[in-house]
Each structure stands twice: as C-alpha cells, then as structure tokens.
C-alpha cells in the first residue's frame, strides 16, 4: 500500500514508501492533527501567534477582564484595610465564600495536571494539543486560589509565620497537625511542581522562538528568548535527560494531584461537623476537581481554538475525549452525592440525617438542586456522540458544570454550617458586595492571565505536537 499523507510538497519524509504497517495503524485511528501539516507548518502557526501584533479583539477583551480584575483587587484592599467583617461570614456560617472560592479554584487546576501528568503516563497522545494551555490554566487557577487563604487571615503581612514554619519572636511554631497547614504545603508544592513542569515543557518552544528571532535579526526578542529558553540546544544528548526529567515529573505529579484535593478535603473531613466528617471526601473531592477542571479547560479551549485558529490541532476528537472524561468524573461525583445520602441514613446518626435532609429541602435547597441539575443531570447529554462533538453544546454545558461545581463547594460548606446543633444558633449566609467583588475579581485575574499567556507564550507545545505528526517518528524497529 502506497502511502499518500503528503498534501504539501515540503512535507519531506514521504520519499520512502516503507513502514506501511505503522502508516495503516495511523490511518485506522482518527487523526489527532487534521490537514497533515508539515513540521514547519506547526512552527509557523504557533510562532505567528506570539510574533504578530495583538488584535483589536484581544485588546478589548483584556481591557474588560483587566477592569474586573482591578475591581477585585480594590475589594481585596478594602477587606485588608477594613477587616474581614466586610464579608457576609457570620455565626454559625464562619466559613463561606472565601473557602468555597479557594476549593473551586484549586479544583479547576486539577485538569491541567491530569492532562500533563496522568494522560502522559497513559500515553494518551491527544493530550499534546491541550497540555500547554491546560497547565497554564492550572497555574493561574492556583494563583487565584491562593488569594483566599491569604486574605482570610485578615492581616496577610503577619500571616507568614502563621502559615509557614518560620522562626519568630514568640518562639512558637505552626501546628503541623492541622489540615489547614497541610494545605499550605500541599498547595505550595502543587504550584511549584506545576510551574516547573510547565516551564520544562516550554523550554524547547522558547528555543524555537529564539532561533526565529535570531534569524529575523530581532535583537530584543532574541535576547529575551535566549534568557528564558535557558539556552536549550535541541541536542539529543540533552533530549535524553530532558525526557527522563519529564517522565519523573509526570510520575510524581500523578500522586501529587491526587494528594492535593485529598488534603483540601481534609480541611472538612478531619473536623467533626455533620456533613463534613465523612470518609468519602478525598475521592469525591478529587473526582469533582477533575470534573470542574475539564469543564474550565473546555470553556477556554473552545474559545481559544476559534480565536487563534487552531482548529487543525484542537480537533473534535479532542473535544470528544475531554467530554468523555467530563462524563466519567461527573458520574463519580453524582455517585458520591448518592452515597452521602445512603451513609447518612445508614449511620443512624440523627444529626447526620438532618444535615442531608436539610440540604435537599432546607433554606439552601435552591443551591443544592442547582448543583444536582448542573453536575449530574445536564452532562448526561454527552452519552450521545453527536452532542460530545457539538462545540456550542459542549461550551454551554461546560459553563453549567463550572457553575454547578462552584455550588457544590458552597453547598458542602454553607449548608453544613448554617443549621448548628442547637436551633438557637441557626443562621443564614448572604454574601456582601465585597464577597461578590472578590470572587468576580479572581475570575478577572484568571482570564487576564490566560489572555496574556495566549498572546505571549506558545499556546501549543510545538515540540510535542511535532512528535505526534504522522510519520514524525522513525519506522525502524517498531513493527
């Protein structure tokens, strides 16, 4: 069978007809990249986004997100200068939007690490088109998440020795048995490792941009990219160690990502509040994190795909695959909702039973049913392949899941607290304008950072996409 993958004349590795076995197995699967671009096409497409001037639409969008971010930063300043009494938190709802938003944002990040680490270990080659932007999203989401625990301390400037084991004049140390401190280490490690992983992946692409700037005689760009690419040469003796480092990072990021939301769930599970004190929390939180993260990846990726004209690289197959993961994790989350009710009944504990009946039928039932509809019912649409491949439907559902997953955290936190053991201590939480502004502000910060990333950093992993192009790998010894 003669192989004819080459539409373009510069697609140069077609000269030999051999290796039809590999070629045919490629053909049987749906292509991960459509239109058979050459190596140079990949370089050009991705580099052009960085090298050309930003479009008007980009300026308009980033101005809007920038204003929202600035408003959020103002609300944060107002909180810091006035005190956290400006939030709606009260007795008995002592934890409210601050930790809801923290858990929400941390969860968003998990999809990035799942794509970069777990799918890498499982050799899911389709990850290459989306891993760069999903990892960037992870970093920005963790930045947004970190804002909340820092400002909820009220006085962030002294929080340094509340959060970190730093020697101080009181000669006291942080409480290493508190899940909140475990969180500091888990989230700190998560951010650091995600950043390292992302940057290592970026090095070869920055070197590509450096070489292009050098060739074009653009001295400023050449200097910048020379510095940030750390002098990557592309030598195979370097690639050898690079690939090993990448494998190690993927290997340790896998348990890391599972541990982060596990430890976040300990914030609740280690307490003795009915509704929080359950052993299902760690897996339930991890599944929910990946679920919400994939929803956010889809929300951003479908937009980026059309705005940056990456249809060739981010294909319907990618969207389909992501929707499958969305369904799988969504079903796990739905199962967890059900099991919580079973255990509440089976435990025979009246307080536990009350919390769950109150969740579905009490003053916050509107939040509970919003969560169930968005997370469990709406994603069932994706049993249909046609729907999984429909971009508009996927985008709308991804928004619903984002909303639903925010409500999940709110439901867990607020409904478990607002009906205390004694009816005399019952209360209700309503957010203030400051709560709303800070949350909106983090959305603005997140989107602003993502827009900056999409403009100034290669949005596709150039070297990784090249490696999976049909015919990019030698046929030798592989059949």
């Amino acid at each position, binding site marked *: 069978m003669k192989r004819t993958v080459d539409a373009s004349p510069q697609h140069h590795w077609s000269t030999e007809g051999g290796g039809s076995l590999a070629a045919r197995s490629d053909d049987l699967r749906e292509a991960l990249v459509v239109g058979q671009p050459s190596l140079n096409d990949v*370089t050009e497409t991705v580099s052009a986004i960085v090298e050309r001037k930003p479009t008007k639409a980009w300026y308009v969008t980033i101005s809007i997100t920038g204003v929202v971010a600035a408003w959020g930063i103002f609300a944060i300043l107002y909180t810091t200068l006035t005190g956290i009494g400006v939030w709606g938190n009260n007795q008995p709802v002592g934890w409210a939007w601050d930790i809801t938003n923290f858990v929400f944002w941390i969860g968003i990040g998990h999809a990035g690490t799942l794509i970069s680490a777990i799918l890498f270990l499982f050799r899911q080659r389709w990850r290459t088109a989306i891993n760069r932007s999903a990892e960037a999203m992870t970093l920005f989401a963790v930045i947004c998440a970190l804002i909340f625990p820092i400002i909820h301390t009220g006085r962030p400037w002294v929080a340094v020795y509340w959060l970190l084991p730093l020697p101080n004049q009181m000669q006291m140390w942080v409480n290493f048995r508190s899940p909140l401190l*475990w969180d500091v280490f*888990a989230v700190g490690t998560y951010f650091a*490792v995600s950043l390292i992983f992302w940057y290592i992946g970026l090095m070869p692409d920055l070197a590509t941009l450096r070489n292009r700037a050098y060739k074009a005689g653009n001295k400023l760009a050449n200097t910048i990219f020379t510095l940030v690419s750390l002098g990557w040469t592309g030598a195979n*003796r370097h690639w050898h160690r*690079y690939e090993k480092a990448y494998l190690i990072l993927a290997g*340790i990021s896998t348990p890391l990502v599972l541990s982060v939301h596990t430890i976040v769930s300990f914030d609740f599970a280690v307490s003795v509040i009915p509704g929080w004190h359950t052993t299902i929390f760690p897996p339930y939180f991890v599944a929910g994190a990946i679920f919400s993260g994939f929803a956010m990846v889809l929300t951003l990726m479908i937009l980026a795909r059309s705005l940056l004209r990456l249809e060739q690289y981010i294909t319907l197959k990618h969207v389909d695959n992501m929707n499958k993961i969305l369904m799988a994790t969504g079903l796990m989350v739905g199962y967890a909702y059900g099991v919580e009710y079973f255990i509440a009944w089976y435990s025979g504990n009246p307080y536990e039973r009350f919390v769950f009946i109150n969740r579905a039928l009490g003053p916050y039932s509107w939040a509970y049913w919003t969560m169930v509809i968005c997370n469990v019912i709406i994603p069932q649409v994706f049993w249909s392949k046609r729907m999984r491949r429909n971009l508009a439907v996927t985008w709308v559902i991804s928004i619903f899941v984002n909303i639903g997953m925010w409500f999940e955290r709110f439901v867990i936190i607020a409904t478990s607290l607002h009906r205390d053991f004694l009816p005399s201590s019952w209360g209700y939480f309503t957010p203030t304008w400051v709560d709303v502004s800070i949350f909106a502000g983090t959305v603005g910060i997140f989107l602003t950072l993502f827009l900056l990333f999409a403009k100034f950093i290669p949005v596709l992993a150039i070297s990784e996409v090249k490696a999976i192009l049909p015919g990019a790998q030698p046929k*030798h010894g*592989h059949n």
Partner: protein
Amino acid sequence: MDTIEMEYRKMKSSEGIIGIFLHPDAVLNAAGELHRAGYGKFDVHTPYPLHGLDEAMGIKRTVLPWIALAAGLVGAAMALTLQWWTAAVDYPLVIGGKPLFALEPSIPITFELTILLTALGAAVGMLALNGLPRWHSKWQHDPHFLRSTDDAFVVTIDADDPLYDAERTTEFLRSLGAEQIRTVMCHEE
C-alpha cells in the same frame, strides 16, 4: 553580516561539520553509523525527541533518576526532622494528652516535601547535567543549524573528535544521505 554576527566573530572559534537530514529514518541510520564508526563527539539536534536515537547514538542511561531519588529522600528527611524537632524538642507542648510527635499526622507534609524536592532534583539535575542554562549552542550562528528547532535533524560533529577529518567526515555524511553538509566555525563563549 549583521551586527549580532559581527560580535560573535570576535570570540574564540573552532571548526565543525554539520549535516542536515530531513527524514527521521535517515538521521536515525546516520546516527547509528557514526556511532559504529567510532565517532564520539557528535550529536543530533532535533526539533522533538526522536524515538530510538538514544540507542543508535549509544547514549548511556542518565543518572538523573538517582539524583531525583536522592533529592526526594532529602525532602522526606527534612519534613520529618522539621515536624519532630519543632513539636517534640524545641517547643514541646502537650495537647489533649497526645504524644509530642507521631508519624500519622506527619505523613501529609512528609509526602508533599518529598514530591517537591524530587521535582526540584529532577529539574535542576536535568539542567545541570545538560550544562544549562547557557546562552545557546555553539553551533547557533550557522543559519542552517537553526532549522534544528524547526523542521530538520542536524548532525553536528566536533573538530576535536579524534576521527574528525574535514574531507573524510564530509564524505561519510554524504554517503549517509545528508541533504546538506556544511563546515561551520563554532563560537565558544
């Protein structure tokens, strides 16, 4: 000649030969032949990692995993020491009649610091073993070499390789199917 290139001309330079390949199979074969012929100071610059090239070039397995493991163990030891020393030695405080130090509640932080140090070890170790950061490869100033981050596989042979001979090496590369062969003045920094 632009100004950037002028600056580099002043630097110490040495000779070398580069051969440009456009087909992954051809460069894999060429790397194998060079290795078999006894060349040691050669490398293949590729836009993405090419399967099988490590074996063909006879690259020994890197010690990087051991560096990462050592760093991870340091992380675990650090975390346990920190938690034990602060709670049981420096400021012992009995809370709820519990022991001053116990392994169980110390696991999460030990786990996280192990991961953190392993990642740092792998990343810093990889850079150090590769001699990075640096400004760029010494072949950087040959415009054809620059294709190695775009769409070509570039074999580079250092002049100080014992087998290096400008004519014979060029001929060898040609016989291996290089599309283009160039003698390049390398600029060391």
